[in-house]
Every structure is written in C-alpha cells, then in structure tokens.
C-alpha cells in the first residue's frame, strides 16, 4: 500500500531537519515504539509494539536513514519481524520545503506486511497504515512546534534555540512529551 501527505510545520527547516534525525524525537513519534537505539549515524535498532486487527505483536528490526540530502529530504525505512505474527516493512520519503510560516513536510509512505498480519488483517492494513502515518506526523509536528524535545530528550538535533518557535509554553510541552514517552 502507498499513501502520501503533507503538513505545514511552524518551525524553520533546520529545526525540522534536526528533529527528523533525532532518535528521541523519532522514538516519541513512532507509534508503539518501545525503544530506538542508534547503531550508526544513519541506523537504529527499534522495538515497536503494534496491534493490527486481531494480531498484536512486538516487532524488532532495523530503521535506516538513506538518500540523505540535508536539510531537505531523506528516506526513513524499516523492517520489523514480529515472530509468528509475520513482518512489516516499509518506508517514507520525507521532503522539507521552506514556505511562508515555516516548513512544509511532505511524505510518501509505502508499506508491506506479511504472514499472519497479512492473512488476518489485510483488509485493515490501508486504514491502519494511514492512521500510523497520521499519528507519526501529527506527533512530530506537535513535538517540533512545541519544542519540548530540548529539555526532556536533549537529543543533539533538538538543541536549536529556536525550536520553540514561539508556540505554547514550556510546561505544556513537557506534558506532551511525557504523555508520548511515559
């Protein structure tokens, strides 16, 4: 399945790009992500728990950043093995463009599942993937716009002093992240 979308983020492109490369931000934004460990500059080991229709599984696998063209685009892709539940793999081509009012983030997602997830949950996959993508980018937008990553996560990519971009206040932002990660 494939889907596309765009979001306008009230932050400059450098900030958005940093966040896209920050494991803590990614961890906070990937729905069901239980851990995300950096294994190289462009790769991570992830554990993600998800439920597709009747099948719930913990996926373990690698997340890769590729086709990096800082600060305007990259591809984030991953393949997770969920044991008896089967596998899920896919990626998103993410592009950033400077626009009035901030940064336009656009994405094309492709995803593929196999094994029991496909067998039992195939008809749910399109809606499910759309929901995951929506959740990911909505959370991402809020994290970036809220600038809450600075204190709670402290990742290198989130250290920009303009991350807050003047929206929201600090305690509210913290609350956001706590809910996401806690």
């Amino acid at each position, binding site marked *: 399945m494939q889907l596309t979308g765009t979001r306008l983020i009230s932050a400059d492109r450098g900030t958005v790009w940093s966040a896209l490369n920050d494991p803590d931000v990614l961890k906070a934004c990937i729905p069901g992500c239980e851990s995300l460990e950096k294994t190289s500059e462009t790769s991570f080991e992830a554990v993600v728990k998800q439920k597709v229709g009747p099948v719930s599984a913990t996926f373990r696998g690698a997340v890769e950043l590729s086709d990096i063209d800082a600060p305007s685009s990259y591809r984030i892709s991953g393949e997770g093995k969920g*044991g*008896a539940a*089967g*596998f899920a793999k896919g990626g998103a081509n993410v592009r950033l463009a400077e626009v009035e009012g901030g940064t336009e983030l656009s994405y094309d997602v492709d995803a*593929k*599942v*196999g*094994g*029991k997830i*496909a*067998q*039992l949950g*195939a*008809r749910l996959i399109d809606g499910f993937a759309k929901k995951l993508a929506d959740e990911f980018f909505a959370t991402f937008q809020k994290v970036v716009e809220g600038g809450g990553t600075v204190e709670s996560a402290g990742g290198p990519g989130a250290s920009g002093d303009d991350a807050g971009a003047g929206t929201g206040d600090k305690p509210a932002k913290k609350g956001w992240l706590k809910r996401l990660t806690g």
Partner: protein
Amino acid sequence: MPKDSGIGASIKRREDVRFLTGAGNYTDDINVAGQTYAYFLRSTVAHGKIVSVDTAAASKMPGVLRIFTGADFEAVGGLPCGWQITSRNGEVMKEPRHPILASGKVRHVGDPIAAVVAKSLAEARDAAEAIGVEIEELPAVVDMRAAISGAAPAVHDEAPDNLCYDWGFVEENREAVDAAIKSAHHVTTLELTNNRLVANPMEPRVAIGDFNRASGDSTLYTTSQNPHVIRLLMGAFVLGIPEHKLRVIAPDVGGGFGTKIFHYAEEAFCTFAAKALNKPVKWTADRSEAFITDAHGRDHVTKIELALDKDGKFLAIRTATLANMGAYLSTFAPSVPTWLHGTLMAGTYTTPLIYCNVKAVFTNTVPVDAYRGAGRPEATFQLERVIDKAAREMGIDPVEIRRRNFIPADAFPYQTPVAVAYDTGDYHATMDKLVEIADFAGFEARRAESAKRGKLRGLGLSSYIEACGIAPSNLVGQLGARAGLYESATVRVNAAGGIVVMTGSHSHGQGHETTFPQVIAEMFGCPEANVEIVHGDTGRGPMGMGTYGSRSIAVGGAAMVRAAEKIIAKAKRIASHLMEAAVEDVEFANGVFSVAGTDKKVDFGSVALAAYVPHNYPLESIEPGLEETAFYDPSNFTYPAGAYAAEVEVDPETGAVTLLAFSAADDFGNVINPMIVTGQVHGGIAQGIGQALLESAVYDANGQLLTGSYMDYAMPRADDLPMYAVDHSCQTPCTHNPLGVKGCGEAGAIGSPPALVNAVLDALNAGGIGVEHIDMPLSPSRVWAAIQSAK
C-alpha cells in the same frame, strides 16, 4: 410404497448417531501415550532464498526435543506427483522437487521452513518463535499471465518460464477446429475466470506419527480420503518404508472435498520424526494454517470460442486455459485441468469438433489441486456460460438452444470428439423435469412481481455432465496416471451370520456406512443391521484407492458386489451339499437357499455356520470359511448428468443478488439411498453457490493471501441458501457396473455456478442492462460495477 430396506430405501444415516452426538473419533481425538507435538515454522514471504536457519537458541528452550530443518530431509524423497502430463511438443511436464521442509528457497507463504517437536504444543510454538531465520526476499509472481510472460521471476529453476506443461487436446482436431471457427455463421467468444477456492472442510488436517521400536512398525493417523494411497506414496516415494511396516489410519474425517486426497508434507514429517525421536508426534492444523497449506481449488483463466451455424447448432469449440499449479505440484494437480477437464468439453451436446489448450503455470501461491468436481466444474462453467451468451446473441431461448444440441436419447453409447464415450443418458428428460420443478412457466409473472418492487428477476440454467469413477486403469496409465483406479472389498461372513465389509472407499460424510449395507442387505436378504462397514485403515482391509471423483458407489460399491457374488456362489455350493442337491439347482432369494421344485431349504445363517464349523462339509472340494475379496476395475467412467436452474433477484441500486430458488434435476442412474443422494446434491449446490456468490481466494501482488481467514473468505451460510428443489427420478442406469449407479457427490458443485451466473446476467439483460459477463464471485460490488459500466 417406499422400501424400508435394501437398495432404494431412504434409511437414516447410522453414522449420524455418533457425528451428531459428539461421539465421532476424529484424528485429533486420538492421543497416543507419550505423544509429542510438532509445530511448523512457515514462510511469511512468498518467494525467498533461505540464507540461514539458526535453531541453536530455540533448541535449548524448555520441552524442545528436536528442531528439524530442510537439511534433515535431503536424504528422503520429495512429495510425489501422481500424474504426468505430456506437452504438445512431446516433452513431459516439469516436475520440480517438493521437499518435506523447504530447502534452499521458500516458494509460497506457508512453505514450512523448520519444525519443532516439543513436549507440549505451547513449548513447540515458543521455540519456533526463537528460531532465527534469514530469508533474502525475492520478487514473487502471483498472476498467471505475468508468470509466463518471460519477464517474471522463476518459481523453480527447472521451469524458467514457469510453465509446467502446454497441453493440447485433441491435438489432431486443432486445424479442423480452427477452420470450423473461421468459416462459422456465428462465433461467440468469452473470457472468464474460474475463481480460486479454499476447500475449508470443517475439520482441519491432522497427522500423528507413531513408531514401535520393538516391531519396527510405523503408524500414521491422518485426515485422509484415501489412506492406502497415502501409505503407497509416503512409504514408497518419500520415506522408503515398505507397506508391511507402515499402517495408515484415517478414522472419522470431517469433510474432504478433494483437499484431503493429497499426500502432504506434515504426514511424512510426523511419521519421520516419530521414528527419529522414538516418540509419537502429533500435528494439528489451525484454521489459519489450513488456509495457507491445504491445496486450493480451481483458479483457471479461460478464453472459449463457440462456433454455431445459423440455426444455433454447435459446430466447434476452442479453448485456451491457464491453470494455476501454485508453487509445487500437489498429488493430482496436473490431471485436473487436463484429463478431468478437456474430456468433458463436449458436455451434453453433439459438438463435433473440440480443441482445448491448457498451460499449467507455477506461481508463488499455495499448490492447487482437485476440489469437489475438479476440472469438470471448470469445463461446465465455460460451456454453459458461452452457450448462454450465444443464445442471447442469436436471440434463441436458452432452453431451446440447449435442446437443439443435446445428444439424443437414442444416440447412446455416444462417442464424443474428446476421447470419452458416454454409456447412457437422457438430457431432454432432465431438462423436462427441470422446467417442471423450477416452474419456468410461471417465471414471467414472478419477474413482473419483482419489477413492481424495483428488483430485476432472472432465471438461469445449466446442463452439466460429469465423469465419475475415473477408469479403466490401463487407459489412465497411458494418459499419465501413476496409480491404478480400481477399488477393492472384502466381504467376511462370520460364523454366526454377522457380515463385515472391508472397503477401500473412505467415508467422510458420504454415508457409506449406511448405503453399503443396503446393497449387502439386498443381495443377502438380511437386515442392514447385520452388516458392518470397515474402512479407513490399511491394517484392516485390502489395498484400496479411496474416495474422490464421486467414485465410491460406482467403483467401491461394485467391488463389494463382486465380492458378495463370490460369497453367494460359494454359499450355494455349501448349501447344495447340505441339501444334497446339485449346485445348479440351488436358488437363493431373501436369505434362503432352496432347491427348485422341492421344499428343501436352508437359511443363510446355517450355511455360514457350516462354513466355519465344517462337520458336515465337503472339505475335499470346498475350503472352510466364508470370506471373499474382489478388486473391481471399471471399463469406463460413469456419466451422471442433469439440468440446474437458479432464480435470482438483483437490486439494481446496490448490485446485491438474492438467490430465491434453486432447482436440480439429476440423472444418477440407479439410486441406493435417495435421501443420502439428496443430501449430497444439497451439499454440492451449497458449495457451488459459495463459489458463484461468495468465495474467492485472493493474493496481493507480493503473494500474501489476503483472504486468509473467515473474516475475509466468505463461506456460504444457511441464510445465503434457499430451499432447493432436487429431483433424481430421471434414471438411465450405468451399463457397465453391476449396480447401474453413476455417482452423485460432485454434481451439485458442478452444475450450480453457471446456473447462478446465467441467472444474474438474465436479470440484468432483461432489465435493459447489457452485461455479458461478470467473474465470480458475484459480490454486490462486482455486480454494481458491471451495472454502472453498462450505463
């Protein structure tokens, strides 16, 4: 007055007492002392290279006895294929190895990679989770046209073009058919798909392997329609176990529909592992596993052309079919689209020239093999759909166009242009009966009534023929069969008169335990209760070929009759001694031997007792005992035929089809138990309705089965089915078997799909919506889309 005993009596099924009270003994009900449990780790990708299988950590997990991988099975045989097809160019079909556990590559989702045997099923499952499998995924091929395009990945290196065979039949007719089509007054062309189905018997497959170290004997309990065939295939071709050291038991089996004919990897695995571990090994499929491991059915794509003269007489038929074999050749897969399909393309008609081309294609999907009807539904569907289309194009009534082309009742035996010769039939008679029971006369009034409610009513029909009890062995051997197609029976009369029949026919819903005793009761003049049927155990009866292709009563029943005739012949000799009369003067009727013209008589029980307590007995000329075995190899198929009608209502707003009535007029020859025959037809029609309206196995482009559960694979339910009008009073008995029977198990599934599709198209076209074809299943969305595209 209806009979209450013997042939023709509608006796209630004796097996239902145990089936309906939960007292059946199915394979999963069997638990062998000390048994262990197998769990198969299966491929989640449709095509891939196995890079590594790491079982080290999993092997140390609690309860694990051993983990097997493909390497453990390299020294044994692959799963054999029972039929070899020869291509048009004279080459034999491609027959790639089908390993017990995948070796080198996985080729479909569900292909077994490893198997864990543990003390409990939970431990086996847990350990399977811990096996590290690295597979390099390869592009998969699912669509048959793409598979043979030359640009697709090869499922097997041995068949780089994914072509298993390219069969032509009748090759000598090809040019004449081409010429006839070229010069015909009218040619009707139709492209259609016969949708892939999952058989889904109520009971999933189960296998238990057991090994007795003291005797060296292996026993396999399995959900099979033909335990002797499994013993032969697994013993001789896979594991190398001689038949006297291998017993295969198929106890109560909860439905087969063809998918339990075949020899499966799990059977060989459990037998092999039981010996390797010296422990019984049990495997029970869950429903999800059944969807991706039971052989699927149908899955043909066909272009058919029918040439007609100006009066609607059929001149020639030409077909081109792609038949999906799936990833490996299942046991009888190659025979289904060929000899069980091309030979039926004459149908019930006098078409003089027929040519079929069938290309069998490998894809990264579950293997495809026989499913109720097997080849014959595909033939009937093409024929009856193209005839309906031709009738509409030429403005001829659909009943009339069929009548103009029926083989007349006085033309039998009738040699078709596609090798087979029909012994008997009367297709006008079944059509007459159908027109009566489906009330064709009142249809227009019913249609008008539907129209008032905004609904489109349609009446569709089909005329089918099938070939049952495939035979004779020496002919099918020439056609590529690697097995005989006889059946056996042993009839044992015990000293006190009780009778046991050991038959190679397996009963898994057909009611043999009721009908076979009716035949014996008729012949011996005894109550049915005196007769016990033993089947499903290679340790208890002679070599038999099992149950498929509606062959049980026609072939297995005939073998039983032959054995019973031997009993009667011997009993007459014993009786002649007891009555001090010449054997040629001894008569036998109603269970009593008598001497013509005298009052001398002796009953059957006394003869049986004399045979086993031979005090007053001619030992010098007659052996003691009263037990006979017969093997029966038919000289021809049997040819049941009939006419079916479906009456539907289509909602033009939603495309929803409501099946209002279904009528079936069948000619099964003589009928042993009319009630059981009616039940067989009911079940077949239900499955045909399922195919036509609901069922379809769908893969995505990556080879993932999207309809892998009952959430997405729509089985017919009671509220999808109307009450049926079923009639089998038209009877032209088979001329070449002793009972004059033809077989009834598959008819319903063969005749019903085209009748239903024809009915829906009749509804649409009569309602002014010009739609020529909709592929099955006729779901509301497909019908709606067809309506929209016609607007």
